[in-house]
């Protein structure tokens, strides 16, 4: 049976592959980066991080760890190069879910940021990445 660290590595591989498969290739380019990940017993293993680019907007899908309160795994999406946090992806109840605060609708004067949790799939990946890109200040 795989330990937590191996399991996290496998889950991140699956997440990164899903982003690569589902992302709108007419808009985005991607590049993997082998991140050195230090697990709880100080072993080091390489797990993939993923750079994503659309025009001048650069994002990083960065796996964070498995020893996260209330979840079995976490990866964050950052706006680069300043590392501004944009969205968090938690492994919860057997699947990855992406948490993102959708910006307020400028037409709807009373609307506020609305944080939603969506399953990681093609539609949610592209909806959220496009929203981040639309509102990003690189």
């Amino acid at each position: 049976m795989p330990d937590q660290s191996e399991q996290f590595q496998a889950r991140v591989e699956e997440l990164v592959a899903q982003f690569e498969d589902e992302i709108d290739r007419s808009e985005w380019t991607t590049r993997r980066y082998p991140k050195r990940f230090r697990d709880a017993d100080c072993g080091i293993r390489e797990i993939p991080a993923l750079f994503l680019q659309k025009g001048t907007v650069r994002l990083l899908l960065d796996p964070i760890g498995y020893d996260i309160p209330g979840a079995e795994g976490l990866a964050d999406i950052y706006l680069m190069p300043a590392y501004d946090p944009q969205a968090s992806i938690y492994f919860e109840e057997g699947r990855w879910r992406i948490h993102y605060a959708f910006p307020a609708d400028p037409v709807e004067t009373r609307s506020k940021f609305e944080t939603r949790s969506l399953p990681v799939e093609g539609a949610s990946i592209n909806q959220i990445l496009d929203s981040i890109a639309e509102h990003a200040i690189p």
Partner: protein
Amino acid sequence: MPYRRFDWHEHIREVWGEYWSAREAVDRLRAAVAAKPDLLDKDSLARKHLRDAHRNLEGTYIVRLFAAFEAALRSYDRVVHGDATRQTDAATMIAQIGGKRGRGIQSGIRQEAQEVRLVRNFRAHESDEDPGPLDIDEARRRLQKFLSELPEEW
């Protein structure tokens, strides 16, 4: 084994994340003590210490943030000069270090990092000159942007 810039970015990001977690904890404890002052009655100084922790938390973490940034620059500076014991002060490294592929680093990016250094100096009591407000999010942005100008490995 070469140093990887990504690892230094990661270190800065971790320090910044620890700040926000500590901030949340201190804010929640302050609120709880305000609602129930005898919560900390076992130590007569505990409420004063909580007030000080609240006041100084961000500065403490900006000092740590800059220390991580300075360690990254020092590592790069030593490799570039082939001298593992070289000691260059932070101001000089920010002013002189070159970017990836032999490119220079924009003066604006250098200036923004120097301003974070002045905040660090003030917070670490190395200077009496108040450089003005600069929050930890802005400090993190500036230092990460500077680092991103260095090569991926050295």
